[in-house]
């Protein structure tokens, strides 16, 4: 099999990114439900660089004659999906944070009320 230079560069970059993601998983810096999309995204270019024909056919079928442009389209859509997903995660955290702040205020109030008679 004859490897072209761009395939080597893409494969090396993809493996390097996958290695970084794997290291972050190993150090528990990425939470379990968040690392799978990243591992998928990091290994996608590796697969695509060796599996060019279906990719080219899909580009032509969509009317795209400069095949790498399809990669940019998917890349941008993937980034948008990831940002949207992260916004959902941040929104959940904000909601939980507000709930915790309210619980803290209510508990502190109860604690103050319980300590007041003890202080006399």
């Amino acid at each position, binding site marked *: 099999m004859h490897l072209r230079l761009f395939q080597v560069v893409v494969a090396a970059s993809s493996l390097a990114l996958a290695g970084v993601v794997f290291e972050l998983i190993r150090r528990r810096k990425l939470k379990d439900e968040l690392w799978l999309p990243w591992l998928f995204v990091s290994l996608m270019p590796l697969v695509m660089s060796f599996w060019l024909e279906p990719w080219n056919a899909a580009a032509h079928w969509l009317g795209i004659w400069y095949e790498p442009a399809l990669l940019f389209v998917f890349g941008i859509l993937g980034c948008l999906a990831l940002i949207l997903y992260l916004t959902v995660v941040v929104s959940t955290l904000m909601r939980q944070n507000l709930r915790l702040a*309210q619980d803290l205020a209510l508990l502190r109030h109860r604690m103050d009320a319980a300590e007041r008679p003890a202080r006399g």
Partner: protein
Amino acid sequence: MARDERPGDPAVRTLVVVPAFNEEGNVGHLLRELETLPLPLDAVVVDDGSVDGTAAAAAAAGARVLRLPFNCGIGAAVQTGLRLALDEGYARTARLDGDGQHDPRALAALLAPIDAASADMVIGSRYLDRQGFQSSPARRVGSRWFSALLRVVCGQRISDPTSGLWAANARATAILAAEYASDYPEVDAVVHLVRQGCTIAEVPVVMRARHAGRSSIDAPRALYYMLKVTIALAAGRLRRAVPTGG
């Protein structure tokens, strides 16, 4: 075991929730006014992460104070007070803003339809009699817009849907304690209550200009308020109503 109806029993009293953010200069005055009312009321000030002496001023005026650890937004502050009312079994709740714009003397009129069981929530409207402080032009435009929207969404005419002066019975309190938007919550709350089958009424009130400090709603924020609440209303209309609270 049934509660006894002695004075001080939350089952016959109203918890007045006063959200306050940097209202050191207003909150004490408001609480002293509340104390003079011949109504069975308890006040709780929810200090929304103030950096001034709001909590100390409220405590000095004899109110209970809930201190949020950081600024969470007006809706989250009100909801904290509602959660306290729900936990302690209060029969009614009312909201009065800590900036002094809401006249506590309006509480008797707000609570009357609730005591008569003719409404679950009663909103104090500054536009029914058009007396007193009528708010900024930007806010008036927003109010008209929301009023028209509520007519479409709920089939009900609410003349002052952005009013933060309201009273609610235990059922409406439970619903709002479970779900209340963290910023610009008033219109969303009305829609949410109507969808849960609650009855909303309005009574005329006279609002005042602020005693001290500046309002947080300027023209750009009013525009953001309108856009945000309109989209939230449209999304809420498409959301399935899940029974909450009472």
